[in-house]
């Protein structure tokens, strides 16, 4: 880049000098114009190269965004009177001829030759840092075509009274003095189609710091609900990318948040950062969508997930899902990008149990949850080993489902079926074998010896048996009961209740009927 050095003149010269300068101005050589940005460099793997931005053929990138050093270093007012017309030096502004936008440095030397006037060193205008697209000639013609009064340079560049260049670089407010948006009080036409005035950031010559310093559109406001991220920036994204987003952003910045940036058409259409130009990274923020915060989301989300996790992939990497999901992971998870393959960190999730688990009493009714969705248990639990750790532990080797001292006091809970023991323990093979080994098994003789708290136990046992029959079976063999409750027994007392459907039972398994009944319990008839 050429450095512009300018040393202010010390003296004004007389009219003949002015004439020479005017002559020189006619042959002024334009300052450097910048070529349109080169096409995007090779896109990363999986990325489609964004279309290269091509400057309009007549663009004249002479418009710069305001900046602190945009002073009139030339000292137009000092030369006032010498150059009555702006176009005397800047003829290109009227003709659209880029090469004639600035005077040739040689023309300065016609006066500032070191003899007549102090020698100045100026090697032409520096490359302007700008992201504007503006064609003076087109602008003039357009205004005139619309029937408006022809514009003068001073209308944009300075106070018309001393018709000199007071604002060498026009600020946006000058544009807005005509192109006013009543709804925009930002001092910048930020609600408009940015591309009307600006080239894409990737194509501009503005430094990334200056791009970062451009005014933030009002809808970009960061609020508690992250409205912009959740509801604004994705709406009509295709149009916004071309008209607005690309003014300040490059494709790479989308990938700072979007896990699936490589697959999003809108993002792919955004120009990537040119090689060697580092655009500021955006802070990845992942606001929680409203539906994610509902109680049922943990349950429903697998049904909501689209094939290949399309609607999850914006924020989630496969790793975030695997915070909870064990292998084999559901298909949408498997299709998500891995964290090490993308730039975005992906939304973090906490492995939090479903709300049903947060009840202290969940264990008592977890069977229904497991039955309705076995797969959902396997999401977080290795079903085979996790279930087995309780369902098959069976009091061997320490604490599992029951506390270590549960066995001592288990009788009441077992009798009342607080937990359904038979889901894990066979009343005969498990309960009875233990009771027998501990001396609690039936001796085959019935009396008050064991039920010693109830001397008349035999007279009261029918009600207890019907209420807690599993408890009986945990000590007594069937033959104990058949001593009385059988046609073959001593008292031939029927054990059947009033609702007992004998015919149904006989149809189902006549062998058991014959354990007690001599011959056909239906008196020879077919049940």
């Amino acid at each position: 880049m050429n450095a512009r050095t300018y040393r202010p003149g010390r003296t004004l010269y007389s009219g003949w000098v002015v004439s020479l300068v005017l002559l020189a101005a006619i042959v002024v050589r334009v300052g450097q114009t910048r070529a349109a940005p080169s096409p995007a460099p090779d896109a990363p793997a999986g990325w489609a190269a964004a279309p290269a931005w091509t400057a309009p053929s007549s663009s004249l990138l002479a418009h710069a965004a305001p900046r602190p050093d945009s002073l009139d270093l030339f000292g137009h007012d000092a030369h006032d009177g010498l150059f009555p017309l702006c176009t005397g030096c800047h003829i290109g502004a009227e003709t659209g001829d880029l090469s004639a936008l600035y005077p040739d440095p040689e023309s300065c030397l016609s006066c500032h030759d070191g003899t007549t006037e102090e020698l100045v060193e100026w090697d032409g205008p520096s490359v302007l840092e700008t992201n504007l697209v503006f064609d003076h000639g087109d602008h003039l013609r357009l205004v005139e075509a619309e029937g408006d009064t022809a514009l003068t340079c001073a209308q944009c560049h300075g106070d018309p009274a001393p018709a000199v260049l007071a604002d060498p670089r026009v600020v946006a407010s000058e544009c807005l003095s005509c192109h006013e948006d009543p709804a925009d009080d930002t001092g910048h036409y930020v609600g408009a189609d940015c591309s009307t005035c600006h080239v894409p950031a990737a194509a501009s010559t503005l430094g990334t710091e200056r791009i970062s310093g451009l005014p933030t559109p009002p809808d970009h406001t960061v609020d508690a609900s992250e409205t912009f991220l959740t509801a604004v920036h994705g709406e009509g994204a295709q149009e916004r990318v071309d008209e607005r987003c690309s003014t300040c952003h490059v494709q790479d910045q989308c990938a700072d948040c979007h896990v699936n940036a490589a697959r999003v058409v809108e993002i792919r259409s955004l120009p990537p950062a040119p090689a060697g130009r580092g655009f500021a990274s955006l802070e990845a923020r992942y606001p929680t969508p409203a539906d994610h915060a509902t109680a049922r989301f943990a349950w429903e989300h697998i049904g909501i997930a689209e094939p290949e996790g399309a609607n999850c992939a914006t924020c989630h990497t496969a790793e975030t899902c695997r915070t909870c999901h064990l292998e084999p992971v559901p298909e949408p998870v498997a299709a998500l990008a891995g964290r090490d393959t993308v730039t975005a960190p992906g939304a973090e999730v906490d492995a939090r149990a479903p709300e049903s688990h947060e009840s202290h009493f969940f264990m008592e009714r977890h069977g229904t949850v497991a039955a309705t969705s076995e797969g959902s248990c396997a999401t977080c639990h290795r079903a085979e080993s996790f279930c087995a750790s309780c369902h098959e532990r069976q009091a061997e080797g320490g604490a599992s489902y029951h506390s270590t001292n549960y066995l001592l006091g288990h009788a009441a809970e077992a009798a009342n079926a607080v937990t359904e023991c038979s889901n894990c323990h066979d009343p005969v093979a498990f309960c009875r074998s233990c009771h027998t080994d501990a001396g609690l098994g039936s001796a085959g003789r019935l009396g008050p010896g064991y039920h010693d708290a109830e001397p008349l136990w035999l007279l009261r046992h029918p009600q207890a048996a019907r209420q807690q029959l599993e408890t009986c079976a945990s000590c007594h063999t069937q033959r104990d009961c058949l001593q009385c409750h059988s046609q073959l027994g001593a008292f031939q007392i029927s054990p059947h209740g009033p609702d007992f459907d004998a015919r149904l039972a006989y149809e189902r398994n006549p062998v058991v009927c014959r354990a007690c009944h001599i011959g056909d319990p239906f008196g020879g008839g077919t049940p």
Partner: protein
Amino acid sequence: MRNGRAGPGSMGGASRWALLRTLLATATLATGALAAGAPAAAQGVRGTLGHAGFYAELRPLVQDTIDRALVDELGPTSFRFEGAPVYCQASDCIRYRAGDVASTVSGSLDANLTAWGFGVSGLSTTVSLRMRERTGGELLWPRTDDRVDVFLAYAQYAREGLRARLGRQRILGGLGRTAFDGANVLWTPRPGWSVEGYAGRSLARALAEPRNSALSGLESFLPDRDAWLFGGTLRARPRPDIDLTLRYQREIWSDRSGLLSERASVDVRAYPFDLLRVDASADWDIAFGRVGKAHVTALLPIRGRTLMLEATGRRYVPYFELWTIWGFFSPVPYLEGQLRMTWSPNTSTSVWVAGGYRDYGETATTTILSPLEDTGRRGVVGGTWAPAPRIALRGEYRIEWSAGAYYSGGDASATWEMTSDVSLSLTGTAFQQIQEFRLGEGTALGGGLAATARLPWQGVRVNTGISIFRAGTENRTLQPDWNQVRGYWNLTVPIGSDPGLTGSQR
């Protein structure tokens, strides 16, 4: 053997089956080990290996025979010896008393492994087995005479909504736990919808053994034959907020001489409103033509889950297979209502409280003298509190009473997490149980010490603990000594990791 199960030295069918199981387990383990050691990156094995040991010391009840001449005869059927009721017949009587102190030391080895990567995508094998050994003592602890249990041993092929399993497997669902040797095919056309069918040799309920080997010697009317199991499950998600599962299952004797069981169940969970969650289930005993167990629970999390309110309606009736006479004795159900609350205002504090009331159905029995109570109640209150980052206190009190059983007692523990890998716990318990028509009226006090450690090697975990219990008596002239000492230790070694994940991630 005392309970009739065939021991390892016998030459019966059960012994042959035990040998077969051992061979099967060995073969499956070898397969898993080979898969784990194979060089192919896609191959792997995951699971756990574990050892558990158990020590118990107590005085088992024994029957004493007493000369009838030494017994006080209070009436035709009422006899007392040293103030305690005894049973007399002919010239002698019997009583129960505490025997000599007996102990047992038993150990088990568990292997729960899944291996995959046999050159066929989606093919895996799973095995879960336990080998037991009673290494000392004269007390026979339940199941310790069963040397090998193969809980699971199946091959699975899973691809794109289809899963097929072949071998020993189990089903956990609305009908409880069902184990069988056979085939299972599950088709999941889309999330929330699936159809499952299974069939095979039925195994004893809650035991991974054929009925006749698991129960022979314990019961009288057990046919010496296998049983076949057929079943199917339909899972549906008719709406995003409703999951529904229907299951049907039928077991028959292999000679088709009769049914063992025929049941169906329905399980539902739904979100009728945004926060309110409802779980419900019911089963039908088709064989007996009656409704079985059922419950409906409404769960309402409020204040951002810090307060969980639950209301449950429940029906319980025991289920008996058709080969026993128990189901023919017309057990009656009880209906129960429960209200429960869990309050967790912060991560260091949680409090829960629950209460329930149940009412037994009409037993239609003639009871001499006063009938038994036909209602029951239960109550629970407990909480956890972490007064310091590495200290956790827990306590719970429970009360349970109805006909035949009463319990009132509590547990408390204090756990000190010495480091992120080592913790120590002190436990204590005290309870009173009064049983109307069973032995064991009295109190118990107990305390123990437990430790948990994660070793700095491959995530190995070690747990150990010892507890001592002292029984007391109330309102009894003779109470068998039920004092006990119990100890346990176990060690778990994780094997492998999930495909696609490093060990640190899971």
